[in-house]
Structures are given as structure tokens and as C-alpha cells.
């Protein structure tokens, strides 16, 4: 939407004053979500039955947006749909920065009243140049300012990635999933019906946002495919963009009078567009979060030659199959390296040829792992780092795990190559769920990408290699 002023959008997305309109008890979810908000929070509610509950929370309530003294940067609108135009009119009159509209029941209902109301909002906001997020959305999450749309969203500094989602559920899911993987989500924008601001506007904003180093998107379609693909092409030149396109139904009728037309399914064109623009295409929430973790936590691979360290013979075969199927090479190492391994590596029931079968060499001690990683760091053939089957149990002393993670940290810092950890749910090293979860949390806290299967690790790292090496082979 070219009519929206970028400074105004920036003000709306980085609010210092927030007004929640129409929140209801007993939960007062929208107000409760903002309990850590770093700026000034106000409530607007006309209903006398609701006001005491709001004031009990220590939040000042007004009967109208226009009664609030001072500027309002963002309005969170949670009123019934028929009231929405009145809230928008007040917001326009007050000159607020923008509106995030949770209210639903518009064109998505496909019923005349909803469509008519939506058209009215479009007209009002377009005329006023009002940035409107939604409607029918969860709105915005801001890590720094603690603007939130749900429980469990972190408040803090930093930011590794920002999220744009056409679905509120998936926006929350990707954000939570990324947080669980130790990723700091700078912003999440749930875009809903996108009647004023749409996916292209948000992408353009985040592309130029210095606090957003990477972007992840969930989309079911686009309002303007040409504009979106143009902006996406620019965005991927500045920062990585992960796109999960949901929905395989064809959008709109297509005249088909040619061979080409009959083969050009909507999905085929989306897939082609994502490749052409240099986006990282994923097909599920797991793949999205896996790719995010890989992107944020691994150093840049410069090729597809990887060292695979498994703990048993069977696992060394399984891990190799997966990494090969995602385009990795598992190269033989140099004679010099093999000579060094021969000095200490347990070859009875083990192997150091790459893939490694290393349980009997590594056990739970750090010393031999240190030797292995030192040799691999000197090995010039490896350019995609190390993927290590990681034990979920058996760290005898509390310091063991930290010591091992220190070694892996040293390796990636020394080589600038990725390290990913694989904790297969069905592996012989998977402990009881609780112990495994504790180990995983400690691994994640040290900034490692960890995956629950060889397949998911191979797929995620494969995408990171593709992203970093695209154009190199042409």
C-alpha cells in the first residue's frame, strides 16, 4: 500500500504508547498480554461492567480514544465488528500511529455484512493513510518493547529473526518454536486479512529494519504477486528469507489454451518464484523452525563436504544416507588425518573413515572428542562442518556436557564452519524424555542447532548450504 507513510508505519510498529480498545473480563487477555510493555498502556472501554476489572489491574481506562491525553502510537482493537468503524474513526481523528485489529467477522466470513464492513474500513483507512494491521489477526509482537499477543513470548534485547504470518496460529507457532530453539525473535506480525498493509508492505519494512537480521514468513497467497516477488528478490539480497507457503489450491481461474498453461499449477509457480527470488522454501512448521535454527546458530558453510560423527555402525549408515540424500558429500579424509586418528581411535567396533563410528572412542569423555575435532579442523576437504550424533544421557559429572559443548564451540569458532547436533528420538543414546529435554535445553542455551532426527538436521543444513552457496556454481 503505497499510501502508507513509512515513518508512520515505523511509529505503529515501535509504539511507546499503546491503547487497548474493547478488552473484556474475566481474563482481559489483551491488557494482560501487555503487562511487561515498556511504554504507557491505556484501556478504552465503554462498558461499565468491564471498567472495574480493568482499573483493578492498575490500568487507566477511558471512555473514548479521543479522551486519552497525549499521542497514541498503536491501538489494539478488540471490539465487536460492528463497532470497529467507530474505533477507526476515533483513531483517525486522534491521529494515532496505527491500528492492530484483532476483531474478525469481515470478508473472511464471505457474508454480505462482513464484506460491507471490511469495505468501509478499507475506505476509511485508505483516505486517512492509516496503517492497519489485520483485521482478523493477532497483531504485533515486539521483543524489545514487550508488545505481545500471547503468553510465553520473551521480553529482552537482541533479535535474530522476525516473522510475518498470514495465520495467527502459525505466527505464534513459529515464534514459540524459534524461541525453544534458542532463537531471539525480534518481531512477529500476524497479518490477517491484510486489507491495508499486506505481506509486501511488512516484508519491505523488515527488509530495511536494521534490527531484523533474517525473516521467516508463512503465507497462503499474495495480494499482488508481482510486487511481492519483486520485494522478495530485493529482500533476499539483504538478508535470508524463509518462506513457508501453505495451501495447494489454485488461486483464481486460469485460462488454459496451451500445453504450458495446463502444466503451470499454482504450486509449481510458487515453487519457481521462491527459487527465482532466492528465498529458502520450507513446507511445514517443523521445517520452518529447523531452518531458522540452522540459519541463526550455524556459521556459514562454504560447500557440501561434511564430517558425520555417529555413535554406532548402524547410525553411521543411517546418518550418511540422510546427508547424501540432501546433497552432501561425506568425503574421505587425508592420509595425514587418518594417521593421526590411528594413534588413539578405537577401531574395534569403531571407524574414523568418515562417517565416524565413535561411541567407543568418545564415550562420555571430552578428551578424545577434542582430538577428533582438532584433526577435523585441520582437514581442508571439510567445508560444511560437522554433524554429530549427540548423546541425550550419560553425562556422569555435571561439567561433562559443558566441556563437550566448549569443544564444539572451539571447533566452529576456529573453522567458521557449521556444527549441528542430532539427538534422534529413537537413537540408542536417547535417554528418558526428561533427561533428554534437559540436555537439549543446555545445548540450545549454548547456541547450537539441535535436531530430533538425522533427516531433519540434513534437510535444514542442506537449505543453509543452498542459501549461502547460491550463485557460486554458475
Amino acid at each position: 500500500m503505497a499510501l502508507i507513510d513509512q515513518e508512520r508505519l515505523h511509529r505503529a510498529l515501535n509504539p511507546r504508547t499503546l491503547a487497548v480498545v474493547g478488552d473484556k473480563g474475566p481474563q482481559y487477555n489483551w491488557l494482560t498480554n501487555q503487562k511487561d510493555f515498556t511504554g504507557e498502556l491505556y484501556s478504552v472501554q465503554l462498558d461499565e461492567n468491564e471498567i472495574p476489572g480493568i482499573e483493578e489491574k492498575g490500568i487507566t481506562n477511558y471512555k473514548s480514544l479521543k479522551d486519552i491525553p497525549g499521542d497514541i502510537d498503536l491501538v489494539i482493537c478488540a471490539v465487536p465488528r460492528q463497532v470497529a468503524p467507530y474505533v477507526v474513526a476515533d483513531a483517525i481523528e486522534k491521529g494515532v500511529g496505527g491500528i492492530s485489529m484483532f476483531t474478525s467477522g469481515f470478508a473472511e466470513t464471505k457474508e454480505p455484512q462482513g464484506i460491507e464492513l471490511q469495505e468501509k474500513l478499507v475506505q476509511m483507512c485508505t483516505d486517512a493513510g492509516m496503517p492497519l494491521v489485520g483485521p482478523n489477526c493477532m497483531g504485533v509482537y515486539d521483543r524489545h518493547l514487550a508488545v505481545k499477543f500471547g503468553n510465553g513470548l520473551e521480553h529482552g534485547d537482541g533479535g535474530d529473526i522476525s516473522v510475518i504470518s498470514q495465520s495467527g496460529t502459525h505466527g505464534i507457532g513459529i515464534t514459540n518454536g524459534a524461541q525453544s530453539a534458542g532463537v531471539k525473535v525480534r518481531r512477529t506480525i500476524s497479518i490477517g486479512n491484510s486489507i491495508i498493509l499486506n505481506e509486501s508492505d511488512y516484508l519491505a519494512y523488515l527488509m530495511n529494519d536494521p534490527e531484523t537480521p533474517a525473516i521467516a514468513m508463512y503465507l497462503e497467497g499474495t495480494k499482488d504477486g508481482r510486487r511481492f516477488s519483486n520485494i522478495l528478490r530485493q529482500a533476499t539480497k539483504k538478508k535470508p528469507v524463509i518462506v513457508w507457503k501453505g495451501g495447494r489450491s489454485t488461486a483464481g481461474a486460469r485460462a488454459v489454451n496451451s500445453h504450458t498453461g495446463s502444466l503451470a499449477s499454482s504450486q509449481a509457480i510458487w515453487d519457481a518464484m521462491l527459487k527465482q527470488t532466492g528465498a529458502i522454501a520450507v513446507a511445514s512448521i517443523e521445517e520452518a523452525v529447523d531452518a531458522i535454527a540452522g540459519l541463526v546458530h550455524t556459521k556459514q558453510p562454504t560447500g557440501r563436504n561434511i564430517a558425520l560423527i555417529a555413535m554406532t555402525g548402524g547410525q553411521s549408515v543411517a546418518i550418511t544416507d540422510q546427508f547424501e540424500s540432501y546433497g552432501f558429500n561425506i568425503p574421505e579424509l587425508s592420509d595425514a588425518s587418518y594417521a593421526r586418528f590411528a594413534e588413539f581411535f578405537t577401531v574395534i567396533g569403531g571407524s574414523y573413515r568418515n562417517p565416524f563410528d565413535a561411541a567407543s572412542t568418545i564415550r562420555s569423555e571430552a578428551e578424545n572428542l577434542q582430538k577428533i575435532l582438532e584433526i577435523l579442523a585441520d582437514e581442508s576437504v571439510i567445508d560444511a562442518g560437522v554433524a554429530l550424533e549427540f548423546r541425550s544421557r550419560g553425562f556422569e559429572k555435571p561439567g561433562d556436557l559443558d566441556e563437550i559443548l566448549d569443544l564444539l564451540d572451539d571447533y566452529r569458532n576456529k573453522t567458521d564452519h557449521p556444527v549441528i547436533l542430532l539427538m534422534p528420538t529413537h537413537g540408542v543414546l536417547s535417554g528418558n524424555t526428561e533427561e533428554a529435554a534437559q540436555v537439549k535445553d543446555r545445548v540450545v542455551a549454548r547456541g547450537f542447532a539441535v535436531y530430533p532426527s538425522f533427516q531433519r538436521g540434513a534437510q535444514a543444513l542442506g537449505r543453509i548450504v543452498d542459501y549461502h552457496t547460491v550463485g557460486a556454481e554458475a
Partner: protein
Amino acid sequence: MNDIIAAARARGRSQLTEVEAKQLLGAGGVPVADTRLATTAEEAVSAADSIGYPVVMKIVSPEIAHKSDIGGVVLGVENATSVSAAFAKITDAVAKAAPNADVDGIAVQAMVPQGTEVIVGGTTDPQFGPVMMFGLGGVFVEILEDVSFRIVPLEQRDAHDLIREIKGFPLLDGARGQEKADVAALEQLVLKVSAVMEDNPDIAELDLNPVFAYTDGAIAVDAHIVLSSEVA
């Protein structure tokens, strides 16, 4: 609007004839088999003399899709006498099979040597607008649907990827002892078609089928262009 498209629109047509399609593409720098329209036997002989023998002769009518089924195509015409005879033969056959068809004339086309068959296509996506397709000819496209797409306009890198993305690419790249096709020439052809689509938003769909890829060069042998239902 392009003159050829404007003329077809003026006649109420929703498709270009093969001759028009090739003129349009040729003007845009796409290598096409030399194809000329003749409305008399004399014109046909003159066209064939200029193109060089042997030639292919085909009926040109927007209403006749399956030209060879009704005797509308004669291959391997070797000299002027044969051109005159073929002209009469095609005219008679079409008069019998499709007496009311709107006929432009007869196309005289250079008979180009067989190459590796590929298809280069274009269509209009409801969300992304003009897009291009690439595939190997015959069974690869029809049965295996081994095709790739890119959004117009294509950059050099997109043409590179479009061609290499199909599973059958090794067949163009010298697999099983075949001669390597001139992939650079195919890339240039793809980029020229992309430019034609970008410059002519009235083109809704386009099939260059087949394109012959040679060890040196590539050429569109047949071309089909469908216009959008609304004037762009």
C-alpha cells in the same frame, strides 16, 4: 500494441496464426524457422526459392488446429514444380474438409534439420502474471511433466536455472553418448522469449513446440500464441 497483435485483434481473433506468431517472435530476436505466407502458388514458389529447398508447406487458418489430419501439410517439397502442386493439393484438401474455414493462405517454411526437441512455453499466472516454462519435448513433457518455471522477466541466471532444473537435463548435456546441445543458445532463446512476453502483455499463452536444440544453435520450429481475453 504490437502491429501483428493489433491486426489479429482487429479481425476479432484470440490467437495468432503460426506465421504471425513467428513474425512476432522473430522480430523480438527469437530464432524461428523461416516461415512465409503465400496466398497464390506464384507467391509460394517465390517464397520457397528465397528460403531454399526443401520446404514444408502448411495451411494457415486460425480455425484449423490439426492441420495434418485434413491434408493441410506437405513435407519435403523439393522444387518449384512441386511447390505449385503442393499448393493446389492443400487448397483442395482444405476446401473439402473445412469449406467455411477462414483461411489466410499457405505457409512456406524452411525444412530445418532434426535436433533435440525441447518446449519453451509461457502462460499467465493469476497471482504472478507472465511466467515461462521449459521442458524436453515429447514424452518428457506429456507423460512425466518434467518441466520448470520462472517468472517473467527472466535474468541470465534464471534462464540458466530454468534449463538445468529439469530432471532430463543430462540428455541435453551429453548423457549416454549424445552430442551436447548448445545450452547457451537455449538460454538466449529463453531470454528473448521472456522479453517478448514482457513487451507484449496481450500474450496470455505461448508454446514454442518444438524448439530444436543443436550442437550449435537452437531454433523454434513451430509457434503458437494465444491472446488475452481482455486487451492489456
